[in-house]
């Protein structure tokens, strides 16, 4: 591997890392999902499902799947996750895991790498998967550590903000 290709791989990886953290819709979905996961009693299945969804979406993207309605699905999932977080009801895994799978897949499909080479594109996809998973896991841990009382109410308020914003944009996109 030359220094040049190594540098291209690294820049592709960093671009992939930053992608889900720089797109507003992705941030909304990741925060909503993280808040929802943080309130779950059993969160392992949901996190595994999210990881699988991410891999599925990114593999489909690498296989040059055509244009999809991923942004609409992504925000619909964000709205549901936000509502679950706002309700304060720990979503059971049987509902949380499929939702996480769908959101993960949509994030993957909505993360086309904007790099020159195939190797850098693959590095970008890996970066996107790592950043998206880390974001949900970190937010889930923070939400879980909030415990009861005012911090827990803050989590629910944030969930209602996510749900409200996502519902509005989903309606707008669906009617276009």
């Amino acid at each position, binding site marked *: 591997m030359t220094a040049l290709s190594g540098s291209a791989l690294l820049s592709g990886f960093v671009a992939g890392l930053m992608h889900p953290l720089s797109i*507003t819709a992705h941030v909304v979905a990741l925060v909503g999902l993280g808040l929802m996961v943080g309130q779950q009693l059993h969160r392992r299945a949901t996190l595994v499902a999210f990881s699988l969804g991410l891999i599925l979406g990114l593999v489909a993207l690498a296989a040059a799947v055509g244009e999809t309605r991923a942004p609409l699905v992504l925000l619909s999932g964000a709205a549901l996750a936000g509502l679950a977080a706002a309700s304060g009801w720990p979503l059971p895994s049987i509902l949380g895991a499929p939702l996480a799978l769908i959101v993960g897949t949509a994030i993957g499909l909505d993360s086309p790498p904007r790099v020159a080479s195939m190797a850098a594109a693959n590095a970008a996809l890996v970066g996107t998967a790592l950043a998206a998973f880390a974001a949900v896991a970190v937010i889930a841990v923070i939400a879980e550590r909030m415990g009861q009382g005012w911090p827990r109410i803050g989590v629910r*308020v944030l969930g*209602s903000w996510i749900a*409200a*914003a996502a519902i*509005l944009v989903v309606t707008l996109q669906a009617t276009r």
Partner: protein
Amino acid sequence: MVAVGLWGAFLGAPAIWLLPIVFPVVMAFGGVLGILGIELPWVETGIAVSAIVLGLMVALGVRAPLAVAAVLVGAFAIFHGHAHGTELPAATDAIAYSVGFVVATGLLHLAGIALGSLTRWPAGKIAVRAAGGAIAIAGVIFLGVLG
């Protein structure tokens, strides 16, 4: 928005935390009506009246039952949401606009709750009631401008 937080503080738990959670979601429902082009009569008047009514609730220290407070605030939230939803299609970045106005709404609620926490002191209670009166007067002026 500030009046919602102030009134929540006056009503105490669970209203103080329930209203800021419910308001954005109900407001989104109003926004959906606006985006879908479903006409709602007297939206601007409804917003002005909401400032008057909520301001008076705070000024008079009305301790309404939670169900009554939730229905009242929810009805006004639909007017606010409808106005925002109608403006949304013209916004250049819909998601940034939506996140921005929902967060701004929520922060105004929190500002109201923080200000409302002054009610634990007698002088603070007077200040909060005065703020409610000022909001009601602002609503009357807004209504006059509309007329």
